[in-house]
């Protein structure tokens, strides 16, 4: 057990050198399975004694290799992910599992698969709606994924093992939520930047080690005296992917980021997987319904005959209400990655909803390049000036 005061600095180290630990594990003979999107059920990977590793791109790395297969007017996150893969930056992976969570994800995966041959590769299909038969279909897809991974691992996955893995990951979700409680005070005890480093570290570690890290961080943060200083605004960031601290620091120059609703923040940890007799029921239910990415088509009522706009907004964004109240948020930045259709179509409606809740908000777009950060500063500052 490491010294309790070292949690945050350890997270920082892992953030800076993400693949270090998995490479060690690989050297010990562990198999590493990459995944580019949070919709991949890690429980199945963990349960089979494999190590899951979230593949990311690199904002500092100019996209060159990916140009041969992806156009420039395309999700820049997927472009840089593929680019890094083509540059063999994660050549330590033994396998890759991707999911049709959005169109760019699906297309990129298929390109990925045809240029890099991993010993193991699986693509999970994912429905767009929450209807019963969609859920059934999704469960079937997860079961297929389980089967192929079993044969790769060369062993059956009994359901008690899977349940144990679900509990392990639920524990991680609970710990992250506990950590997020520590951003409730004003000023928060942990900054958005540190939080991002922790979350990204979690996605680079085996679940058990992640939980250990979280325990350290939580106790360290609770006792710390050197927390973030108080800033005029308490911000909610709503984005698809926010995985870089340079960006977070832009926000935190003039505000405290107390809630990050992106897949570099709380999104993957907001809820728990239900423990069902057939664990796949709980998993498919959680991954289809509980993760609040804009890619999912949510509606107030199935097959409703009329549409009540506010009810519709509630069904899509209601969960934000708890964040806003619970964390006493007084400003929201809708941070859009250019060419991200699911989130882009959401903008005006989410704006309507936040206005309806009386939360000052702004929509800022960026293209995931270092060059695009400088112009962001002016936009962020100008927004903060409108609320302070």
């Amino acid at each position, binding site marked *: 057990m490491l010294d309790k005061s070292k949690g945050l600095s350890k997270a920082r180290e892992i953030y800076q050198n993400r693949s270090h630990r998995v490479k060690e594990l690989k050297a010990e003979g562990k198999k590493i399975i990459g995944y580019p999107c949070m919709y991949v059920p890690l429980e199945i990977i963990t349960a089979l004694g494999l190590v899951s590793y979230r593949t990311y791109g690199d904002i500092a790395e*100019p996209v*060159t*290799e990916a*140009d*041969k297969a992806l156009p420039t007017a395309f999700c820049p996150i997927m472009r840089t992910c593929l680019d890094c893969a083509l540059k063999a930056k994660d050549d330590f992976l033994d396998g890759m599992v991707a999911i049709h969570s959005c169109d760019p994800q699906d297309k990129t995966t298929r390109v990925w698969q045809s240029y890099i041959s991993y010993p193991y590769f699986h693509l999970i299909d994912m429905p767009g709606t929450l209807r019963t038969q969609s859920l059934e279909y999704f469960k079937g897809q997860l079961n297929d994924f389980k089967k192929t991974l079993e044969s790769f691992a060369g062993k059956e996955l009994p359901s008690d093992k899977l349940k144990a893995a679900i509990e392990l990951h639920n524990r991680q979700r609970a710990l992250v939520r506990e950590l997020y409680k520590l951003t409730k005070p004003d000023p928060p005890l942990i900054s958005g930047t540190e939080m991002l480093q922790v979350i990204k570290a979690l996605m680079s570690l085996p679940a058990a080690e992640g939980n250990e890290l979280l325990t350290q961080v939580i106790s360290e943060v609770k006792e710390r005296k050197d927390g973030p200083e108080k800033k005029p605004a308490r911000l909610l960031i709503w984005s698809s992917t926010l995985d870089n601290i340079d960006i977070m620091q832009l926000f935190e120059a003039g505000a405290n980021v107390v809630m990050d609703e992106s897949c570099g923040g709380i999104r993957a940890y907001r809820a728990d997987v239900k423990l069902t007799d057939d664990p796949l029921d709980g998993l498919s239910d959680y991954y289809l319904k509980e993760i609040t990415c804009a890619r999912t088509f949510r509606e107030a009522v199935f097959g409703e005959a009329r549409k009540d706009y506010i009810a519709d907004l509630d069904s899509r964004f209601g969960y934000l209400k708890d964040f806003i109240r619970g964390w006493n948020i007084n400003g929201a930045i809708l941070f859009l990655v250019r060419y991200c259709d699911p989130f882009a179509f959401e903008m005006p409606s989410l704006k309507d909803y936040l206005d309806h809740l009386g939360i000052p908000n702004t929509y800022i777009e960026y293209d995931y390049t*270092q*060059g695009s950060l*400088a112009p962001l500063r002016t936009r962020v500052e100008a927004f903060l000036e409108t609320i302070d």
Partner: protein
Amino acid sequence: MAWFIGIDIGSLYSKGVIIKDDELSAYYITLSGANYRTAAETIRQELLTKANLTQDYITDIVATGSGASSVYFASKKASDIVCTARGINSIFPSARTIIDVAGQSTKAMRIDRQGLVANFAVTEKCAAGGGRFIEVIANVLRIDLKDFGPLSLHSESPITFSTGCAVFGESEAITRVAEGIPKEDIAAGVNKALADKISSLARKIALEEPCAICGGGALNIGLIKSVENTLNIQLLIPPQPQITTALGAAITARTSSLKR
């Protein structure tokens, strides 16, 4: 014995060559200026004087480049991509890939043994994507184009431009100069920015060695080194890289007249 003229009217410079059968007998480069027709006439005159011939000796004239249609006295217009391919092929028969860094845009093409175009790609029309960017910055640094490359080679830490626009790049360079950032770092920064664009263009067409570079950009040793480093290859450079396309036009004139 027969003479052929090729004229390449570019956005910024116009070039012409006169060949006797398959050897270069004269070439001439001038600013395109406002009136392409005048440029074309000047070039023809200068070429004839240099080669000391009269028009009657000239079997055929082919025009190319963005202003090709202004060469009213040419018998044929030819695509600049095709001409560049022919030009390089005549100089470096072994070359399989060509990078042409022209004023307005950069082209990359692959060619076969006969110098026929096997594949090609062109950058979009933005000054930041062509040789023009270098001229703009050279102007800011108040250094001669021919010194731009050598100077940039001295840079320890090339700057990164915070903009993709040549015009803003210009202002940025000016301000950095005023703040005392060494000229070579700025020059190297420009070369790096352009080299990155060129490299991804070359990758698009699946670059195949040997690879030649031509066009005004090929006069810039810094750019060449930068491209060589990024792509990790050796580039072939013609003696007068700017006239490659005009030379190709002249060769096109010859081949088409041989066919007849």
